[in-house]
């Protein structure tokens, strides 16, 4: 790993610190990509690079490959996720094993790191620390971890060993909740990590394959578990878990019959997810799962945010994808915009 260190130093040399607006002129835009939607496109499998698409807040304009346009370099293979903190956005590139910090408004690269990452997946910032979930080596089921970096400098601090296949992560107070889908295997855990001690304070067993997480206005953690796929040793179906974040206990479990729901999000007091080719809406107070979808569509990724639902379609996984934007009031398709290859994430800048 000496070479990696050498590379790190090269990356560090290219650091540009662009921050600090010294005077306050609130009218001036902070960058070309302020106030809009960012789509992370994983890129083609095997070769090629992940890309980022910017869509204006009013959907009037869009721009593909913005990272390359600004920085004249590629992000790397399989852009897994993005997370924001203050003026920064952090891009996690899975196969190329890179974490890139950019200015979220200009998309200018600030720092990139390659060390202390091993199959990085998702990241979150709490109290100035960046927590990155890592599968470790995929042939080793016991080396999975959450790496902790200083969010500003990306200097490595520590690693927290966790259960198999840590994936999405969400923060609340001094806790982060890590969902364990199980990497190439199958898992059914949520790790609760106390960021003040960088230790796992509790492991909650949930349904199989907890693939998405969200927190509602009452600070309940909602976990949507897909269920084991049919090619698993035993196929299981989806479960929606409601977890009380004070006790970190499951309050309610909603079982899906014969289906594998995905992509849970929360906005305007309601939960949204995708199941059986449709988009479903559910009140957090509801005592049962909704039975009819509000929109007939499904995609590679999906999120509801404010007045709109965004469905990312990867098509044949080998061509430009598109995002279909639905008005949640009228349930009508409002706009279709071409994005990159394998659009896996939707973020609001």
């Amino acid at each position, binding site marked *: 790993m000496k070479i990696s260190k050498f590379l790190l130093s090269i990356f560090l040399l290219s650091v540009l610190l662009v921050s600090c607006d010294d005077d306050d002129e609130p009218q001036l835009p902070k960058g070309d990509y302020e106030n809009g939607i960012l789509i992370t496109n994983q890129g083609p499998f095997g070769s*090629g690079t992940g890309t980022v698409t910017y869509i204006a807040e009013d959907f009037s304009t869009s721009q593909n490959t913005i990272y390359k346009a600004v920085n004249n370099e*590629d992000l790397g293979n399989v852009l897994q996720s993005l997370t924001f903190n203050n003026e920064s956005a952090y891009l996690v*590139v899975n196969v190329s094993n890179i974490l890139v910090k950019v200015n979220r408004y200009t998309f200018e690269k600030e720092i990139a790191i390659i060390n202390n990452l091993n199959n990085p997946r998702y990241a979150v910032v709490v109290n100035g620390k960046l927590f990155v979930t890592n599968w470790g080596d995929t042939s*080793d089921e016991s080396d999975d971890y959450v790496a902790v970096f200083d969010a500003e400098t990306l200097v490595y601090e520590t690693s927290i060993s966790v259960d198999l296949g840590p994936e999405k992560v969400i923060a609340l107070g001094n806790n982060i909740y890590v969902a364990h889908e199980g990497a190439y295997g199958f898992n059914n855990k949520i790790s609760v990590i106390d960021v003040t001690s960088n230790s796992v304070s509790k492991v909650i067993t949930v349904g199989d394959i907890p693939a998405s997480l969200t927190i509602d206005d009452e600070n309940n953690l909602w976990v949507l578990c897909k269920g084991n796929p049919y*090619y698993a040793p035993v196929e299981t179906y989806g479960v929606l878990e409601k977890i009380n974040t004070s006790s970190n206990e499951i309050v309610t479990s909603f079982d899906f019959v014969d289906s594998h729901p995905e992509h849970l999000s929360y906005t305007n007091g309601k939960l949204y997810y995708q199941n059986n080719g449709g988009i479903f809406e559910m009140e957090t107070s509801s005592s049962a799962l909704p039975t009819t979808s509000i929109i007939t569509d499904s995609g590679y990724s999906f999120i509801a945010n404010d007045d709109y639902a965004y469905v990312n379609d990867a098509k044949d996984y*080998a061509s*430009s994808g598109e995002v279909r934007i639905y008005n949640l009031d009228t349930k009508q398709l409002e706009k279709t915009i071409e994005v990159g290859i394998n659009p896996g994430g939707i973020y609001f800048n």
Partner: protein
Amino acid sequence: MMRYILFFFIFLISSKSFAQLDSIQQLKVVNLSSAKLQKHSKGFKVLALSDSVIVKNMESFTALLRFNTPIYIKEYGAGGTSTASFRGTSASNTAVVWNGININSVNNGQTGFNALTVNLFDHIDVRSGGGSIEFGSGAIGGTVHLNDQLSFGNHLNNQLVSSVGSFNTYNNLYKFSFGNESIAAKFGVSYNQSDNDYKWLGTDGLKNENGAYDNLSFSLGFAYRLNNFSKLSLFSSKFNGNREFSGTLPNPSAAKEKYKDYNFRNLIEYNFHKNAFTHLVKFAYLTQEYRYFANKNVDNYNYGKSKTYLLKYDFNYKISQYSSIESITELESVFGSTDEIIEKNRKQFSQSVIYNLSFENIASINAKVRKDFNSDYNVPFVFALGAELTPLKNTFIRLNGSKNYRVPTYNDLYWPALGNADLIPESSLQGEFGVGYKTKTVKFDVGVYYINSKDKIVWTPGGDPERPGIWTPINVAEAINKGIEFTAAVNKAIGKHFLNFNLNYSYTIAKDKSTNNFLTYVPKHLANGSFGYSYKRFSAFYQHLFTGEVYTTTDNSANYTMPYYNVGNVGVNYNIIKTNNNQLGVGVKVNNVFNKEYQVLPSRPMPNRNFNININFKF
């Protein structure tokens, strides 16, 4: 790009205007498989790569094909996975045939060209188009023939080729052959290794990390003339290769994959020829294994292996001076497994009939039919027709048409939870028309072809409505491939100066019929050429490759195309010893002489300028 094409054409035309002179004396060699291929390929284009061509691209089989044939090769970084696209068809539509036996992998239907040793084969032929029905499934785009050569008659030859180059690259080859009136024997061993840690041009000091390879191979051939009518021969070859798979931009240090290949091929042949009858019985036993290590530092791996038993009986009856009929009966049993697929056995029986007709100096015709009976699925009845007409001296017209198929691979059929047992073979209909001109000094051939493929096997998400969102293979796509292939070769001698020039140019249009979009990774323009010069003991050559732009996405998005590239190699050679029996040559070769930055696949830079010094000792 036009400048380069223009350069080639100007050169071609000017060299054709040279006065006609005697050709370079070529060593006559006898090779059964090669001879048979020629005989069975009337109306088809066959490009022969001679020993002198092979020695120029010893670094890899991929490089040999890339610089000398019309095949486009997708290579995941130099030395990595390398698969062929012949006339715009998919990797499993190019069959690789070893001494008349199809050796494509049972697991994925393909041959990786970096898992073949270039320098142990005596003769390599590349045949464009389908219709090679005597070599089994898959050859819709074309076939690559790897042949061992055995010759009777008193001789004892040794050859040692050794080269040392950049990135700690060593290529070594020793070949021995011996013959008398009743025995012909040969033995070869080859060892190649490289750190392959070339500089990634256009980056801030990045290198091709995790790209090292080494491979060791042996080949053995033995033939015994039992009497005036019959002989027994035996061929065996073994290949063990280790390769690391390099990574992608911008972080090559993330790469840690490793791959091992173990191939073992054996063939016994009995040949009886008396009067008008020829009987040929072949028995082959082949094993293949690959091991894929996701992390080279961990001993866990995924594997695939197969065993193939093949019995072939070939009966030929010469009806008259002008015609013959041949029957080929084949029985094949394949056992394949992977770490995910328990061993499956597939048996296949096939019967082919081939009729040859020739009128001296006017025409020759091949007609072939084949029917297979397979334990797993129905295989279509296939046929091929080829004709070569020679209306004028030195001029020929060739025509061919064929129906071909490709069987689903073990992965397609049996991959747990994903495979599809209901697949049927892909099939294609194709036709070709060509004209050519051939003298001792000048040869050219231009052909147009059309291929209509249907039921192409494509892995697609949600292919099976019962399994939504799951990647499964289905018989879905229909494709049209059409194009032009042009080949020219010129050999000239002016006094003691010998010149030779070769050019392949192909124009390929391959489209998915349902979307009318171009297929990905098929360059519309592909050209390679070489120019050689020798004077007394000195010789020099230049090789050039132009690969046109390719689409990488099925919607042909302009955002993700791979740009065209030009790359050239140059070499000089001096024979320190040159007698009838001994020859010792010392050479220097510079690959990518213009130090061009290029990529075959996105994010995977190819080697910068690199050097090697080689010796070629024949004694």
